[in-house]
């Protein structure tokens, strides 16, 4: 099978699985397009420089200082200095993930840095960026790649927060995000 076809099948599998657990999946060709997509998304969500309207973006490999400056200018209320107070008050959290798993629709992140966890637990919407090239088939394949001696906190995220604790009725958004938007970026390098 040629590599392109194979990767598109892996992507489709990932998309199907992630959507089945109520995540939203977008795929873009370049980081540039990814940033544009997120900017418009943040506008749409009403992110602005006001209490309860912030967005928090955890330190991530794909953007450097110039991009940050640009993003801050484009979206007032977007903060890269993530504190727990800001994250608890924010509408949207953005972070970059290290891997994605095709057969479960899961995102995997080395999350020793606390801001990475704050932005994906406290706000109602979590936007997760991940390299298309970081798609792996399944759980065993990522477990073989991660090293618990180096990273002491790994987060696996499959869809938004959910519960079925009352009458077993599936309800989305308990303690964590109510919505999860996954953006796969084709020109990104694998982070790990």
């Amino acid at each position, binding site marked *: 099978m040629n590599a392109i076809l194979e990767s598109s099948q892996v992507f489709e599998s990932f998309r199907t*699985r992630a959507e089945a*657990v109520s995540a939203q999946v977008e795929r873009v060709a370049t980081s540039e397009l990814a940033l544009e997509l997120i900017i418009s998304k943040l506008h749409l969500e009403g992110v602005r420089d006001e209490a309860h309207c912030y967005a928090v973006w955890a330190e991530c490999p794909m953007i450097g200082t110039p991009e940050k400056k640009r993003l801050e200018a484009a979206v007032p209320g977007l903060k890269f200095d993530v*504190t*727990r107070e800001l994250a*608890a008050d924010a509408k949207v959290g953005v972070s970059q993930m290290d891997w994605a*798993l095709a*057969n*479960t*629709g*899961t995102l995997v992140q080395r*999350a*020793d*840095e*606390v801001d990475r*966890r*704050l932005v994906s*637990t*406290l706000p109602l919407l979590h936007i997760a960026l991940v390299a298309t090239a970081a798609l792996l088939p399944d*759980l*065993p394949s990522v*477990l*073989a790649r*991660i090293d*618990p*001696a180096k*990273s*002491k*906190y*790994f*987060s*696996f*995220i*499959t*869809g*938004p*927060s*959910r*519960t*079925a*604790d*009352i*009458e*077993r*009725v599936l*309800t989305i*958004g*308990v*303690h*964590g*995000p109510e919505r999860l938007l996954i953006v796969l970026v084709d020109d990104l390098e694998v982070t790990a």
Partner: protein
Amino acid sequence: MKQEFKQSILDALANPNLTGALGNFSVAYRAGRAKAYEGVDFEALRDQIAEIKSSASSQFDVLAERFSQAAEAQGTKVFRTNDPQAVKDYILRLAQDRGVKRIAKSKSMATEEIHLNKHLEKAGIDVQETDLGEWIIQLAGQTPSHMVMPAIHMTKEEVADVFSNKVEDGQKPDIPKLVKFARGKLRPMFLSAEMGISGANIAVAETGSIVIVTNEGNARLVTTLPKIHVAIVGLEKLVEHFQDIAPILIALPKSATAQLLTSYVSIISGPVPNTDGSAKELHVILMDNRRNEMSHDPRFKQALQCIRCASCLNVCPVFRLVGGHVFGKVYTGGIGTILTAWFSALKESDEIQSLCIQCGNCKDVCPGKIDIPDLILELRRRLAVEQGQPLIQKAIFSVVNNRRLFHTMMRAASIGQKPFAKQGFIRHLPLFLSNMTENRSLPAIADVPFRDRIKQIEQPKCTEKAAFYGGCLIDFAYPGMGESVVKVLNKAGIEVIFPEGQTCCGAPARYSGAYEVAAQNGADNIKALLGEDVDYIVSACPTCTVALKHDFIANLESVGRTEELPAARRLAEKVVDFSTLASQLVEQGRLKFKAGIEPMKFTYHDSCHFKRTLHADQTPRKLMKQAGYEVVEMEEADMCCGMGGSYSIKLPEISAPILERKLVNIEKTGVPLLLIDCPGCVMQIGGGLDKRASNIKVEHTAQRLAECLE
């Protein structure tokens, strides 16, 4: 059985919310689980899990030590203890030392096991459960009724009431709103708690890692926001290698909630920075509480393979009727019975062990490959040893074991029943026996038992011979089934003999924990059956077949009569159930179906042992299809009928609704014929249909097959 316990069963059965919710859930769960496991080789997966967990429990000490070293090397503090009290003291002391006023907890059965909350609350610490289900029952002052869904017994109305009464007035029974409300109320708790307490689903010895799964995301908050994190981990959570996480994490969500993966999984291998830049204080408490002792018990070691998915509860016909609280305060259902016997005390399982009807459903789905019904029998046996047999049981066994006395009594009964018997059924019995005929009629005792009838059958002289093992039901209630067996085998050129020395198969004794009696039953039968020079030993009762094939060996082994094992094994090899033998004879061309059989629709009930121990469930279906019949499957064809030997007499309150559901499923098929391979199920279901004046005919496969052959 104590009145209190009976009453708790009656109360549960009378709660329509409970039985309705659990009954519906069990149907949805079955479908969901099947879908989640699509394309997965479940048997291979659970073999792998069983191997990982069993190898871990063979070396708890070594692994606990390795875990401690690895975790401590990363900066985690590890505390190991056998004593639940020491766990509580450790946490309280830590909390007091660090000036902790509020603790946010994510779900942990280990903390339920040791009643941690109470201990901390008594010292004035605010302990906040954050799992939605746990929070609800904490507010309601209740205990979890299910390991995965602690508040499954409550309706949204009840939850709204609890929220209104305990938190804030005016909550409506609207589930999304109730969930939002919980989010809003608990968020400040996470943010203000100085300590987070969690359990763990897996602990990895070689890396000192713990794995925590939650759907709600509360464990991520509990391990992220407070500066101190304490994880309480039962020793059975240990695995040796980091890669061992995979199979467990693949099975757990599928079995627990029919998900491919739980929303959030955290793998924590050491302290990480807090939000203020300081390092997290991470404590892992490895709690023994008799787990090590359990790992040295040759029978119960297996129970440590449990990954706490609760699927054994979800498929249990008894659990779905009575819910969790009848079982006790912490662990519920079949596995809960076993864990309670160990983590609390053997005698605490005395009553709840009797709830198990031995259907084997749980054993089939358990990802830890635990033979739960077998371990419950072992509890029963140990209880019988510890407390002695009840007198009445002793009296019954002394009759059952004395063949002549038993026959005499059965015959006396057959005469005594006359006033009550009509058309082969007894519909009412007087007074103290009346609950035996409340929901089903009983078969009338045959005037002439099969052991005498067979002498009257003219059989062709054949070179091949089969010994027929009748079992009490065919012998005394359904001799017609035995005659059909003879008829079929004769057609294939096999002569049937009935070894006179055969006696009770020992199932009643075994299932009551009286293993000495059961072993003696086995020994008598081995002698009688191996004494004949025959080609086959055939039985048409799955309970008997299982006894002959498996239980004789197990019973003798468990009472140490090892010198008799070779004979028991020789017997086991020769034994075959009727349908399997008939099917082989059809394959060999020795049995031929009549031409021009009127095609007829039938439905088939899977008897528990026939399907789950003998794995012969497809054979009768195939035979009847070959005969030209069409099978119309009922819902839950393989769900127990509620008979369970003497279960239907000891716990008629539970047996009756199980039967009821079965009868409804049968009637829904709209077919005129029900086939079954077990005389016990024929008795239960046939009696139930008779009580409802149904027109559906109930027959043993042998009876119908006999009519379809040339």
